[in-house]
């Protein structure tokens, strides 16, 4: 891989690339990992309202050291702050917002995404010791759009964009767009449609790292 002509995006750069695409006024839920980094990358002056499963709308930046409020955590159990205009509510109301399609966007991490938009992000096998799902399935079916932020391939080089998921599904046919360290790819009725790539990346090199056919966008 030393002769590659491109520089993969870092985790922070993936998050920034996602943030760039979020319009003002959207209600957004961020999963743990790379998605959490999106909050701090929203362009200055653009109001985006972040939701946490545990009953919060209007999450602000991480607290200043020493100004930590122990009563205020997000779904990843990190301490957070609340913006003016934020609100608290209980868990049933919080998941009404999710299941009831009030959340405009959820950004999630994933193990795999299939060309049909199937999402696998909660369990590594059907017989996981003590499997844990949290709110992943609710978010996958409920958010009006699901975007995935993940590495393009696994640590040992296998594609995460696949024909069919090998891991247990979180939800069938729910992912709309995928942001990786190498590219941004839409999931359409035709399959994986390339939106853009990092500088220096070629279509052929990207296809070689993708487990299902990559399509060029159809002219509008």
């Amino acid at each position: 891989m030393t002769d590659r002509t491109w520089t993969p995006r870092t985790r922070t750069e993936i998050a920034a690339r996602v943030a760039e695409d979020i319009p003002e006024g959207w209600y957004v839920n961020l999963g743990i990992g790379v998605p959490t980094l999106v909050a701090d990358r929203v362009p200055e002056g653009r109001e985006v309202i972040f939701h946490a499963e545990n009953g919060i709308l209007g999450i602000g930046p991480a607290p200043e050291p020493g100004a930590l409020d122990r009563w205020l955590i997000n779904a990843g159990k990190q301490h957070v702050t609340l913006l003016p205009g934020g609100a608290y509510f209980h868990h049933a109301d919080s998941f009404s917002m999710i299941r009831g399609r009030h959340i405009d966007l959820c950004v999630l991490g994933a193990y795999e995404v299939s060309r049909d938009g199937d999402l696998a992000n909660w369990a590594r096998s059907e017989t996981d010791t003590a499997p844990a799902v949290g709110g992943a399935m609710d978010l996958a079916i409920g958010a009006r759009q699901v975007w995935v932020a993940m590495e393009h391939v696994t640590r040992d080089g296998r594609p995460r964009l696949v024909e069919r998921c090998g891991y247990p599904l979180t939800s069938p046919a729910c992912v709309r767009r995928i942001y990786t360290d190498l590219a941004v790819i839409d999931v359409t009725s035709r399959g994986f449609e390339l939106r853009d790539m990092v500088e220096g990346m070629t279509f052929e090199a990207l296809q070689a790292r993708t487990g299902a056919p990559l399509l060029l966008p159809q002219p509008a």
Partner: protein
Amino acid sequence: MINKFVPTIAAALEGVPQAATLLLGGFGAVGQANLLIEGLLETDLRDLTVVANNAGYGGVGLARLLKEGRVRKLICSYPRIAGSTVFEDLYRAGRIELELTPQGTLAERMRAAGAGIPAFYTPTGAGTQLARGKEVCDFGGRPHVLETALHGDVALVESWEADRWGNLTYRKAGRNFNPVCAAAARLTIVQTQHRRELGEIDPEVIVTPGIFVDRIVHVPYGDPQD
């Protein structure tokens, strides 16, 4: 900057579709978005389906909408209007359709719509004529009726306070169906008595978070009259 306030009733109602399903908050004279409802009279909207607990109150709001023949169907628990027979007259003349729903089922069907629950079982109405034609299933040895979510194209809501993100509070018995309607419609339009700066409403006290609200018009309306 997010700003859900619009300057006029007309702007608030822009784009309400013909033959829309409207969810109306309010119970008795209290918590009725009468200025928004009467704003519909300035449009050419007809064939409306209205979801509301009563058939209006007094000679204002829904009662006027009914009188002017804009409503094709009423989904309602108690189709009466204090001091008016306009609904009964239309109903007897066959000029309006009625879907009678128990009050709690009406609230729960809208709550289900807002919560992404397409259908639920309820004991209410089992063994009565209101269960006719509905799927019935036993749970714990008691019959339960399958009821479906009741979505609105538009909700018309009256709040006490609102900020530019759409966070709302209500006043006393003015809460009633308003928060339930707000969450159950594609387009939620609010008339508010008071406009607050962002952050002025305590986040513990907000009843309807702004996520459920699309447009707000600030029209201090005064106390409910009856």
